Structure formats: structure tokens, C-alpha cells
């Protein structure tokens, strides 16, 4: 049921939206933990001269500075962009804005809910997610400058 090979674009959208939602949520949890470590906890804000914070900062930066985490961030960038824009498509669908109107059934006609407008937003979300990948690759690895 998870891999929707025989189903329509909307089912792919559903599967991607679920996977990206779960992964981005997990990322946010790890991100908060990592950022908390990065600043060394609340004590660094009131224990001058902040040597502990500086040492911790360098240690974590060294740990995170490798291609594996960079690729991970690029993937997260793709997921966040896709999830956000595709979520907008779903919100619009909740209000019936991007869908066709009910009518008499025409043989072989696609369902009105599979309207070209809402499908276009899906492809826009994919395109913006690809843009986010390019932007992330450039920001982290300078691919456009190379």
C-alpha cells in the first residue's frame, strides 16, 4: 500500500506528503537538540567569558562539517519546500477552490477532483523543491560557483 506504483498522481502526492511530514518533524526534533548542544545550554548566556560555549561551538561545528550532513540538509531542503507548497494545494482543495464542479458523469472522463489546476500546483511544489535543492547545494557546497 505504501508504494503507489499503480495509482494516480494524487496518491503519489499523498505518499510523499506523509513521508516528508514525518521526516521533517523528526528533523525538527533533532535540530532543536543539536542547536541546544551548539550553544551549550542556557548557562553559557550568563557565565562569562563564555569559554565553555566557544569550545562546545567548535566541537559541534567540527562534528557537523562533513558531506553526509550537507547531503542530509539538501534532502531536508527538498522535503520542506515540497511539503509546504503541496500542503498549500491540499488546503486549497479543502475549500474546494482548485477542484472541478460536480456534474453528470461522462464516459472515460477523468474525475473532476483530478483537475489540471490542482495538479499544476503539485508540479509547482516539485519544481520549487528542486530549486531548494539547487539553492542548498550552492549554499553548502558552492556548486554554482564551481
Amino acid at each position, binding site marked *: *500500500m505504501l508504494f*503507489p*506504483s*499503480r*495509482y*494516480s*498522481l*494524487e*496518491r503519489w*502526492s*499523498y*505518499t510523499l*506528503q*506523509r513521508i516528508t511530514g514525518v521526516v521533517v518533524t523528526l528533523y525538527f526534533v533533532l535540530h532543536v537538540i543539536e542547536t541546544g548542544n551548539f550553544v551549550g545550554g542556557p548557562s553559557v548566556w550568563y557565565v562569562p567569558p563564555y569559554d565553555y560555549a566557544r569550545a562546545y561551538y567548535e566541537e559541534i561545528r567540527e562534528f557537523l562539517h562533513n558531506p553526509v550532513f550537507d547531503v542530509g540538509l539538501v534532502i531536508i531542503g527538498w522535503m520542506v519546500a515540497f511539503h509546504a507548497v503541496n500542503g498549500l494545494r*491540499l488546503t486549497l*482543495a*479543502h*475549500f*474546494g477552490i482548485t*477542484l*472541478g*464542479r*460536480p*456534474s*453528470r*458523469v*461522462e*464516459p472515460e*472522463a477523468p*474525475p*473532476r*477532483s*483530478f483537475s489540471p489546476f490542482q495538479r499544476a500546483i503539485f508540479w509547482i511544489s516539485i519544481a520549487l523543491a528542486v530549486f531548494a535543492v539547487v539553492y542548498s547545494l550552492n549554499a553548502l557546497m558552492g556548486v554554482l560557483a564551481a
Partner: protein
Amino acid sequence: MEGKVVFTVFRHDPSAGERPRFVRYEVPYRSGMTVLDGLLYIKERIDHTLAIRYSCRMGICGSCGMKVNGLPRLACFTQVSELGRSIKVEPLPNHPLVRDLVTDFTAFFSKHRAVKPWLIRKDAEEQENPTRQYLQSDQELERYIQFSYCISCGLCYSACPVVTALPEFPGPQALAWLYRFYADSRDQGGRERLRLVDDATGIWRCHFAGSCSQVCPKGVDPALAIQLLRRAVLRG
């Protein structure tokens, strides 16, 4: 297309305590043959113990729903020629198995009844002793006519990933029926109908996967009905 078609059929009798298995049958192809024709050939000439459910053989009763080559379809409505020489047949997902290709629709129909699939009217006396017809314009008819074509075959219900994850979800069929009556100008259920599904396990659980609309053999488009129900709730 001539020669033989290989049917790989799911076999399992839970009451016998046997393990589920797939059995291969070779069936001679003939022009115009449907998947149901092939299964009936197997039952009549190869293996009488195969359990299937069917009735009208013409896509009206909705009895012969099953998963054919990975998608829920009506066996009588699916031509062998559009599937090729290898056909895999399984029972409908999301419905409890009775035996082989026969599934239990008890939960499905109880959800159907729960949405009150009938006209709700305040004028009880007029219902008992009608004095006139309820006239409708073409525009009023078009608001719901599409959803009234549902034959309750359960294909949409078996294709829905939300029903798989949350069995309490009413499913696309019940929700499409609810919208069919909500949108009917003769119905006076109004907000009472929406309250039936405006909860944590109701319309808000739909994630618009659209599989229900894809597999519907009658073009009912339950995904559209569910989004329109949400719009009705959101717009008050």
C-alpha cells in the same frame, strides 16, 4: 490475442486453518472475455472449491469487486485483453476475508447506514400522505447526480489508504453518499448531516490521495464529494 491466460488466484480458507497461497490456473482465451468469465471457467472446469461472489455480470450490482493486477476492479467489468496474459487476482483489501476472493462487507455497510443515506424531511405528514412532487431544476440535480451513481461495490473503500491506517474512518463510499443527500435540494438534513462526520475520525482524516476516484467504475468521484463536504463545514 489467442491461446491461454494464466490466472494466479489467492486461495485461503481462514476457518480451515490453512496458510494463504496463490494457485496458478491456465484458462483458454476467447474474445470479449472478462476476468469474471475466467474465474467462472476455473470454478466450473478446473477447481470447484474456488469461492467468488458475483451476480449481475454487467457492472451494476457491484458484487464481484476484487484486486486484479494490483488495483481494485469489478471482475465483470474488466476485460482480459486490457490486462495481458498474466492476471493476478486477490480479495479486496480493507475488507475482512471470508474465503478466497470473498470478503465481508458488514463494517462497510454499517458505515453506509451511519451517514443516514436517505432523504431527511421535516414534513412528516406530507411524507405519510404525499400531496405533491418535489420538483428540481437541472442545476439542482447536477449538484448531486454524479454521486448517486454509486453501486456500493466497495472498490473505493479498499483503495483508500486512510481506511487501511484508521479502520474507524467512514471511507469514501459513505462520505460520498452523505454528500449526495446533503447536496440534494429536497433534503432538510443540513448541518445535522455534517455533524455526523465533522470529528477526529471523519472528513478531516481524508488526505486526498484520490485513489477512491481513480478506481470507481461508475465515475462517482468520492474524493470530490469529501472535499466539498469539508468546504461546507469550513464555510459554515
